């Protein structure tokens, strides 16, 4: 495991305005629509950690068959 490398792809935080539907990137946790000024927003991406895939080498035969 000590030879393993971790590849992290950062997904920027994005939110959608509930009033005008514009998608924007909140700065410093200020969830305010840059277009209409509404604070009715919801996060669309960037607040989760997803394990996408594991790349393994030299598997013993049949281990993950």
């Amino acid at each position: 495991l000590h030879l393993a490398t971790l590849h992290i792809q950062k997904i920027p935080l994005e939110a959608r305005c509930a009033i005008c539907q514009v998608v924007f990137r909140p700065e410093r946790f200020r969830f305010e629509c840059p277009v209409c000024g509404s604070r009715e927003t919801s996060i669309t991406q960037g607040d989760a950690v997803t394990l996408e895939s594991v790349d393994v080498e030299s598997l013993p035969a049949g281990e993950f068959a």
Partner: protein
Amino acid sequence: MNRVITVNRDVSEAARIKAGEFRQMMARQGTLVANLISSPGAGKTTLLATIARRLTSTTRIGVLVGDIATDRDAQRLAPLVPTVQLTTGGACHLELSLVERGWEMLGAPKLDFLFVENVGNLVCPSSHDLGEHLRIVMLSATEGDDKPGKYPKAFRTSHALVINKLDLLQHVPFSVAAATADAQAIQPHLAVFPLSALTGDGIEPWLDFLVEEQRKVTADWVPTSYA
């Protein structure tokens, strides 16, 4: 040989499902679970003591208090309300498994309110769903009114903000309006309750809010998540 195993799963999925199940189970029996988050010394235990004194005659309350070490908080609260101390042994936050164990140690009772006092910390507790219906973040006047912006996630993910130690306002440079504006810029839905847990000043609207929120928690209850 080289192969790619596609996983494509949210790492917190299992924890989220478990928390949802606990939340639903407690809602079905009419128990509002409240997760109280603040920095050390903001007044969580004092607030719970005040709530217990005021509400135990009309409602069934249980309290779980989280700390890294000691049972000092439980000793303070136990004379007032059934309390179980949860000690994390070093961890800076509570997790659902500890809350479930604590509730069982209380005797798995049917309650109106299960208050969970998290470990004093404005950072890590905000990332852990304890199966609560209500997340309460607490800020006291002595901490300064600039804290919401510095610890945004605790405020972003909470439903209510208690601003405590109003009795000290005359001695410290703290603006309730500034703290409220800073917090609501992060979470516009935050219900804000400035009060003094020590003197009881401002406590009535807060107790009314708790009782009203408890009424909403029924079998068909739908969570509001600001995560």
